[in-house]
C-alpha cells in the first residue's frame, strides 16, 4: 500500500523523501512536473538559526520573530518544531548539493523582513530553484528504487471521504483523460490559492485552488482564509505581478515616496529599528497610507543604488537582470517603481501540529495548509514550512498507517473552471479583498459573487471557496497582520483565534477556534 501525495513542489517532495527514507512507498501526483512547481520561483531564501554571522542568534529568537510576525495567530508548538528543526533542514540541503555560499563559520545568511538577526540562507535570488533541483535529484534516487511512483500531468478529481475518513484519492491523467483510484492515506501538498486571484499574484497559474475548493465541498475544514499576504515590492508585467525579492531590502534597498518633491524614506522614519525590513503586512499597509497623503506622490520607489558592487555581483546578479529585463531600469543606477501585490496565502486547509486535517487519514502541508505563519508570514519561513511540514505530515502518516483503507471511484465527473469564470471571480476578490477592508465592501463582494453563474461543478466549488474567503474577512472584526479592517482598526485580544470554515448541510459555517498553549517542556 502506498501513501498518495497530491503536489510535487517542495512540500510534496519533502513528504515523499521522508517516507522513502523510512522505506515507505508513495504515489507522487502533480499537475505538471516538479520543475514547474511554484517552489522553483522562490527567490530570497530559507530561514534557520545557523548562527554563522556572529550575531548570537538562537532558535528562541527565530521562534519569537515568527510568532510576532504572525501576530500570535500561529500554533506555538508547531512553530517551535519548525524553528528547532530548521538548522538540520538547511544543512541537509547543503549535503544534497545546494550551492549555498559559505564563510569560515558555515552557510552565509542575509537579513530578511521581520527578523532581528541575519537568518536567511540563500543562493543569490534563486533559492527555491536551487532547493528544488537538489531535492528532485534526491527523490529520483528513490523513484529508481520503486519507492516513489510519479504521476506527472495528473490532477486531483476527488477525495474518497466517507464518514469523515479518507481512504484515498481519484486522479485523472490530463493527457489521456484516464482516471486512477489510489487507496491509502493522502497528503495534500498542492500549494497556495493563486487561482482565486488570476493574474493578480506573484505565483503560478498551476495552483488553481481546486484542492482547497474540493476540501470545502467534501466537508474538510479550512482556516484563516482572510489572511492574504500582499508583498510590498512587486511590479506589473504581462499577465501577472512580478516579485522583486525582499532580498533587495535585506541587502540594503530602501523605500521612498516623493513628498513635496523630495524623497521621504518613510519606513526608516516610522520604524527606526527594523526600518525597511518590517514584516510585509506593515510595509504594504504603510505604502497604502503614504501614497494616500495629499503631499505625497502616488508611486513608491525601491532605491537600491546604495548597494555595494560586490553584493550586486555575488548576491543579487539575477535580481538586477530581472529589473533590466522587465523594467528596462538598471537598479544599480536608478530606483525602481514598486507596489504591493498578492504573494502568499497564510490560510488554507486546517491542520493540527502533526499536519492532520479535520478528516481522518487526510493530511496537508506546504502553502496549501494553514500552519506556522499566523496572520502574516515572514519571508524565508515558507520554504522552511513547506519542507518541515512535508516531513511532519509524512511522519504522522507513518505513525497512523492503516493498510485496510480501500477507495473506490465515486464516478464524479471531472470538470474544469473556464478561464472566463476564473477571471470573473478574480475580478471580484481582487477588487474587495484589498490591503485595507471594510464591511460594506466585503458585503458587496459577497453579493456580486452570489450573482455569478457557475456552469459546472468545478466553477461552483471555486465560487464557494471565494465566498468563504470574503465571509471569513467579514467575520473577523479586528485588524491583525495581513487582515486590516478600516472599521475595526485595532487588534482585539479576544480574536487571537483561528477562523474556521466548514460546509454543513450545504451552508458555509464559520466559527472561531482557540489556539493551543505553548508547551513548557
Amino acid at each position, binding site marked *: 500500500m502506498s501513501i498518495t501525495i497530491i503536489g510535487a513542489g517542495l512540500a510534496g517532495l519533502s513528504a515523499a523523501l521522508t517516507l522513502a527514507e523510512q522505506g515507505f512507498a508513495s504515489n507522487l501526483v502533480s499537475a505538471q512536473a516538479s520543475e514547474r512547481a511554484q517552489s522553483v520561483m522562490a527567490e530570497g531564501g530559507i530561514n534557520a538559526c545557523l548562527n554563522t554571522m556572529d550575531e548570537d542568534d538562537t532558535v528562541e529568537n527565530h521562534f519569537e520573530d515568527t510568532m510576532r510576525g504572525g501576530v500570535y495567530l500561529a500554533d506555538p508548538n508547531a512553530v517551535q518544531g519548525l524553528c528547532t528543526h530548521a538548522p538540520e533542514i538547511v544543512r541537509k540541503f547543503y549535503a544534497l548539493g545546494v550551492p549555498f555560499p559559505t564563510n569560515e563559520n558555515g552557510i552565509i545568511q542575509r537579513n530578511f523582513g521581520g527578523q532581528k538577526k541575519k537568518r536567511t540562507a540563500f543562493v543569490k535570488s534563486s533559492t527555491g530553484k536551487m532547493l528544488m533541483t537538489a531535492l528532485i535529484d534526491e527523490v*529520483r534516487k528513490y523513484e529508481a528504487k520503486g519507492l516513489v511512483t510519479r504521476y506527472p500531468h495528473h490532477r486531483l478529481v476527488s477525495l474518497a471521504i466517507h464518514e469523515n475518513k479518507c481512504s484515498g484519492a481519484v486522479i485523472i491523467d490530463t493527457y489521456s483523460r484516464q482516471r486512477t483510484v489510489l487507496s491509502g492515506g493522502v497528503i495534500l501538498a498542492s500549494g497556495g490559492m493563486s487561482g482565486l486571484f488570476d493574474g493578480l499574484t506573484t505565483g*503560478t497559474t498551476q495552483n488553481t485552488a481546486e484542492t482547497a475548493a474540493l476540501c470545502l465541498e467534501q466537508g474538510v475544514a479550512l482556516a484563516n482564509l482572510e489572511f492574504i499576504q500582499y508583498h510590498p515590492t512587486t511590479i506589473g508585467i504581462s499577465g501577472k505581478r512580478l516579485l522583486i525579492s525582499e532580498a533587495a531590502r535585506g541587502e540594503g534597498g530602501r523605500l521612498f515616496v516623493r513628498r513635496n518633491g523630495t524623497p521621504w524614506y518613510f519606513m526608516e522614519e516610522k520604524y527606526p529599528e527594523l526600518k525597511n525590513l518590517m514584516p510585509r503586512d506593515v510595509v504594504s499597509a504603510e505604502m497604502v497610507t503614504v501614497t494616500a497623503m495629499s503631499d505625497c506622490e502616488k508611486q513608491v520607489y525601491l532605491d537600491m543604488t546604495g548597494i555595494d558592487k560586490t553584493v550586486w555581483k555575488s548576491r543579487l546578479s539575477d535580481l538586477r537582470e530581472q529589473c533590466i529585463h522587465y523594467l528596462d531600469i538598471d537598479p544599480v543606477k536608478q530606483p525602481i517603481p514598486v507596489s504591493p501585490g498578492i504573494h502568499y496565502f497564510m490560510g488554507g486547509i486546517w491542520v493540527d501540529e502533526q499536519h492532520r486535517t479535520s478528516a481522518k487519514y487526510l493530511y496537508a502541508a506546504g502553502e496549501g495548509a494553514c500552519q506556522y505563519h499566523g496572520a502574516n508570514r515572514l519571508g524565508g519561513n515558507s520554504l522552511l514550512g513547506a519542507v518541515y511540514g512535508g516531513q511532519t505530515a509524512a511522519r504522522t502518516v507513518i505513525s497512523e498507517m492503516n493498510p485496510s483503507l480501500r477507495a473506490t471511484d465515486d464516478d464524479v465527473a471531472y470538470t474544469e473552471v473556464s478561464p472566463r469564470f476564473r477571471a470573473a471571480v478574480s475580478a471580484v476578490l481582487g477588487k474587495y479583498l484589498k490591503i485595507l477592508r471594510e464591511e460594506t465592501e466585503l458585503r458587496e463582494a459577497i453579493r456580486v459573487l452570489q450573482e455569478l453563474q457557475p456552469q459546472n461543478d468545478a466553477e461552483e466549488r471555486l465560487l464557494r471557496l471565494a465566498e468563504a474567503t470574503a465571509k471569513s474577512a467579514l467575520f473577523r472584526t479586528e485588524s491583525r497582520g495581513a487582515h486590516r479592517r478600516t472599521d475595526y482598526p485595532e487588534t482585539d485580544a479576544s480574536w487571537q483565534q483561528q477562523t474556521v470554515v466548514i460546509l454543513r448541510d450545504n451552508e458555509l459555517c464559520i466559527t472561531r477556534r482557540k489556539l493551543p498553549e505553548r508547551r513548557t517542556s
Partner: protein
Amino acid sequence: MKLIIEILRQRDSASEPYRQKISYEAPPEDTVATLLSKLNREQELTDMTGKPVGRIEWQCSCLQKKCGSCAMRVNGVPRLACDTKLSECKSGKLLLEPLRKFPTVCDLVVDRSVMMTHLLSIHNWLEQSAHHTGKALELCYDASRCLQCGCCLEVCPNFFAEGDFYGAAAFVPASRVLSQLRREQPQDLSEFYRRNVYNGCGKSLSCRDICPAGIDIEQKLATSNAVAVWKRYFKK
C-alpha cells in the same frame, strides 16, 4: 497591433493536426503567453473562415521564464511563450506550433516526460553527500537553473525522443552532480553519461544559443566530459 495568428492545432494525439488562422488586435507589450490567455477568455472568437476557435490548449505556470512549462515554436524557433513579446513579431504574422521532438498531446501541449525518464536512467543524483568546492560554486548554480524546457533538444540534430542520446537537457543537470563527486566516490552516472551523452553528441553546439535560461551550455558539456570521461574531479 494587428496580428494574423496561425496555430497548429490538434484535438488529441490520435487526430490529424490542422492549421487555424485568427485575426486579432493585441498590445505589442503583451507576451505570447498573455495573448493565448486572452484568446481563451474571448467569448465568441472565430477564425478567419468564421469557424469558432474554441479553447486553445497550452501549458504555463510561472509566466516569468522560470519553469519551462510554456516552451513552444514561435515563428519556427523554440522559445518560452511567456518570454516572447508580440513587439518582436515585426511582420504581424505569428506562427505558433508545438515542439516537434516530443509527442503532441493536444494543440500546443507536448509530452516531455521522456526528459525526466532520461535523467532517471542515467542515475542523475548524488549517492554521497555533495563535495562542495569554491571552483564549482558558480557552475553548480548555473547548472541547477535548467528549466527542463526542451528547447535545446528541439534544435539538436542528434536528439530524438525515442533515441538513446539525451542531449543538453541531460548534460546540464548532470554537470551539477558530476562536479560534486569526489575521486574516491565515483558513481554510475559517469558510465551512463558516457553511454547516453558523450558518445552521441556531435559537439555542433546548435544548442548553445537557444537556452532561454541563458545557461552556459558549452561550459557544462566541457565540465561533464572532464569529470565523467577524463576523470578530472573538482578539488578544494
